[in-house]
């Protein structure tokens, strides 16, 4: 027999956990499902400096844990490290099977599965993942103590994580396609003044080369079109994110970037089905905007349930 909830939230990042806080406080029986631990991308961000209420920087993992604690305090259940093995989202009664065994259902679902690191899609990337290539500085930074490493990208994540990696690495060379960073001015300044950080402007990676472990990264100089192989002990890739819409791709239409279109109440158009956070088609993706989406979605769900129950 399926356990009944008022609301199932898929994804325990800032959007999903905020939705759970609002829903649980409104006395909705709420469960949040996540493939890993709560926190979404925040939990692997080494520090957060622009989230209001934390005038001193807060570690991403701490902020993530606080979001989860607050949701649980009001009675939301967070199901950690589970996998959705079956689901039905279009019907009035929405159903999920978790890890092939536990069945749950609810009239309302908020999908807040967020985004994952964008792969570069160049030769060698799959082969050397975990053998010199990484997408998570907090997870793998310590493997590169005293090493010479490369970072690919030039946005906020790339530049901030490069700064974090200087704690371990002997040198960090950032490979970036443009002649300036897209990161915030304060972060950019800090990076350019850091003696351990070098930048290879107007270069793009073309391949990862090595035998069983990564040995070098092949780069192209975008000005001269010349390629060369740069010896490296490790490469971290931060070139943006792609929405995690596997759950919704056959349920609602996606835009050309794979994001879900919603109205301003986060409704997908399927009754009872909402989307919130980085998965949505929108211009800016921040912790604060995810939190706002989660709030709106939870309020919209309350209204939907009141109306559908008459």
């Amino acid at each position: 027999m399926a356990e009944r909830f008022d609301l199932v939230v898929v994804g325990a990042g800032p959007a999903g956990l905020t939705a759970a806080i609002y829903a649980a406080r409104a006395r909705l029986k709420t469960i949040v499902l996540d493939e890993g631990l709560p926190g979404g991308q925040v939990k692997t961000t080494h520090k957060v400096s622009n989230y209001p209420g934390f005038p001193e920087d807060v570690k991403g993992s701490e902020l993530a844990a606080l979001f989860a604690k607050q949701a649980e305090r009001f009675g939301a259940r967070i199901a950690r490290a589970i996998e959705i093995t079956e689901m039905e989202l279009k019907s009035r009664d929405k159903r999920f099977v978790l890890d092939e065994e536990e069945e749950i259902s609810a009239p309302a679902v908020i999908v807040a599965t967020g985004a994952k690191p964008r792969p570069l899609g160049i030769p060698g990337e799959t082969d050397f993942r975990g053998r010199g290539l990484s997408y998570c500085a907090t997870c793998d930074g310590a493997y590169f103590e005293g090493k010479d490493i490369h970072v690919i990208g030039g946005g906020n994540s790339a530049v901030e994580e490069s700064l974090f990696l200087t704690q371990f690495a002997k040198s960090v060379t950032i490979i970036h396609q443009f002649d300036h960073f897209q990161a915030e001015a304060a972060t950019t300044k800090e990076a350019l003044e850091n003696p351990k950080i070098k930048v290879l402007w107007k270069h793009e990676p073309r391949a990862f080369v090595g035998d069983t472990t990564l040995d070098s990264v092949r780069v192209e100089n975008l000005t001269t079109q010349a390629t060369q192989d740069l010896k490296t002990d490790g490469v971290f890739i931060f070139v943006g994110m792609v929405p995690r819409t596997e759950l919704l791709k056959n349920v609602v239409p996606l835009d050309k970037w794979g994001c879900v279109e919603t109205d301003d109440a986060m409704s997908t158009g399927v009754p009872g089905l909402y989307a919130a956070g980085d998965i949505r088609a929108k211009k800016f993706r921040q912790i604060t905007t995810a939190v706002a989406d989660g709030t709106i979605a939870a309020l919209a769900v309350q209204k939907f349930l009141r109306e559908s129950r008459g």
Partner: protein
Amino acid sequence: MSANVREIQASDYEREVTDATAPVVLDFFSTECPPCEALAPKYEAVADQFVSRVQFLKVFRQGNRELAAQLGVTSSPTLLFFKAGKEHGQRLTGDIKRSEIKAAVEALLG
């Protein structure tokens, strides 16, 4: 920790992995690694399913740096699979799903 997952040290590697007759799964984990924490309950659940057929081991990377370097492991978590003491199939790394571990273990037995 499930009784079916044992933690080993680099000094046990030969005995527990390369000299083992039964198939082995080895998990390199680190601290301050959210995907490692997320993996732990899934790893234990799969270990419980294959108990007595496959050995599920874990090794703490920070305490066993040389072994990680020797095996070319540069990311946590990384799962390695061994059949008759030889590495078998693809490694799994990063955000690993329970169904992926199960499929890899079934391939190891197949």
